[in-house]
């Protein structure tokens, strides 16, 4: 498309069109985030008020170096959020690959139907899809009974609430995030490359590794980040399925802003979560800009 025809548009001026949304986002997004960052360096007063002096104490506490010596509570939660996020993303990749290939190989009519089937859960309230697992994994459910029989009734632990339930909930909630971008790259695969590799004697695994994987890498990375980011900052899923045992980043943020009323510390956790997101977006942008190198 020729850019010069319409851009720049000299007959209308930019400012009246851009300013309403821009000002809105500055006032209600940029400023609140700046405040959060600033407050993360303040101290908490005896009654939960935000006060001076400026300090790095909140970040030290998050890293485990509190006033009372080393405490692994918060580093453990940070680590758990990352591990559970990564685990969720891995399971989503393993499940998403066959699903994306399956959909891409369907006839156009069935393809549209299957894509709509993937999109519907994506649009359905996350809260509802999450609490449903409370029913599905409850001790009386047939899923739990099957698991009970399979393990020989050895483990007295119920499936819910547990870390297992949290991961199941996250995989179920975020799988569409991975399948959709992955499907978009699978759809564009040049199959003649795979044919060529196969003709040259590569086995199935090598055909996938050398002829197919490089073609879908960009979609795979984009999808993984789309799963990883919301999984790490999740609040509802561990809250409803972890039963207070599987505490993640989102839950301690919520705690600091409600029960504990330690806003500076809560802000510091937000800043850490925000850092993860910015890093993820940076990787995503980097992959989007260099699709040729990845191919």
């Amino acid at each position: 498309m020729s850019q010069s025809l319409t851009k720049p548009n000299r007959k209308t001026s930019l400012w009246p069109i851009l300013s309403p949304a821009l000002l809105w986002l500055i006032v209600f997004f940029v400023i609140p985030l700046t405040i959060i960052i600033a407050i993360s360096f303040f101290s908490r007063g005896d009654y939960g008020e935000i006060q001076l002096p400026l300090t790095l104490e909140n970040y030290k506490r998050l890293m485990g170096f509190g006033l009372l010596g080393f405490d692994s509570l918060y580093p453990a939660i940070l680590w758990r959020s990352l591990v559970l996020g990564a685990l969720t993303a891995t399971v989503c990749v393993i499940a998403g690959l066959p699903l994306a290939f399956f959909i891409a190989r369907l006839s156009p009519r069935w393809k549209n139907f299957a894509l709509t089937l993937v999109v519907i859960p994506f649009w359905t309230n996350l809260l509802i899809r999450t609490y449903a697992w409370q029913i599905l994994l409850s001790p009386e459910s047939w899923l739990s009974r099957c698991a009970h029989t399979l393990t020989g009734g050895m483990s007295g632990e119920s499936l819910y609430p547990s870390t297992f339930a949290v991961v199941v909930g996250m995989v179920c909630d975020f799988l569409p995030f991975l399948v959709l971008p992955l499907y978009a790259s699978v759809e564009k695969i040049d199959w003649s490359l795979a044919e060529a590799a196969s003709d040259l004697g590569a086995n199935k695994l090598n055909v996938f590794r050398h002829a197919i994987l490089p073609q879908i890498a960009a979609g795979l990375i984009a999808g993984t980040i789309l799963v990883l980011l919301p999984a790490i900052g999740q609040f509802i899923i561990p809250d409803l399925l972890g039963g207070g045992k599987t505490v993640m980043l989102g839950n301690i943020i919520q705690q600091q802003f409600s029960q504990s009323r330690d806003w500076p510390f809560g802000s510091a956790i937000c800043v850490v979560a925000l850092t993860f997101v910015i890093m993820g977006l940076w990787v995503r942008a980097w992959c989007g800009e260099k699709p040729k190198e990845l191919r």
Partner: protein
Amino acid sequence: MVRRKTEGVAMKQNSWRTTVIALLLFAFLYAPIAVVILYSFNEARFGTNWTGFTTKWYAALAQNSLALSASKNTLILALGSTSISTIFGTMLGYALDRFVFSGKRFLDRTLYLPIFIPDIVMAVALLLFYSLIRNWLGIFELGLKTMIIAHVTFQIPFVAIVVRARLSGLDPSLDEASRDLGANGWQTFWHVTFPLILPGILAGAMLAFTLSLDDFVVSFFTSGPGSTTLPIYIYSSVKRGVTPEINALSTLLVLASIIGTILLTLLQRKNSKQT
């Protein structure tokens, strides 16, 4: 892209194994939705044993004043925020596609931040902002208004991105033709560009509406007394234990999402056919 169909056939067909895996995954994706719908018709008030079919929970829902007022709040919130964000988001999308200005690249990148930021971070940032301003100026008492503001904030980028995608798919010569024929910028927008991007604007608005309808975390932190929405109502009920009545309410919401998704898919198909 040219594909040699005859040669690619073997790799382009689903084996029975992939088919079984895919069907199991679909079952996994739909299990929660199915179980909520199923149990909304279960006679038993407690537990997960099936004791018989009933529609009484739906009847009870119609009498539930909390659920009804929550529905009303949800609709006010979704309609109010969507109408503001659709206008502002469309303008932003238009500016990003049709203008070259300094800082555009940066704005382009930062626009994804409100989309990817964990909703809890956005929620507490706004909570903090509102409470500081309230202490200072006495405005932003928590309630539906503060919730609408919060929703508009996360909706704008989504609308802008959808509208922008539609704009960049348009043939630029249409604008040029309109201007050659003497139309000014506004006339060109109103008579040429706007009708063409209308499906994109509608898709963006539906996206914004659904996001508002689904949002729990941001609403939860920015709501005040009396501004309970359906997701907040569902959450606080579920915290006390899942009931068939909540399943009935959730079923209605799920049905709304399914209908919305199908409408959106049809709209997008129409979109892609036009270009």
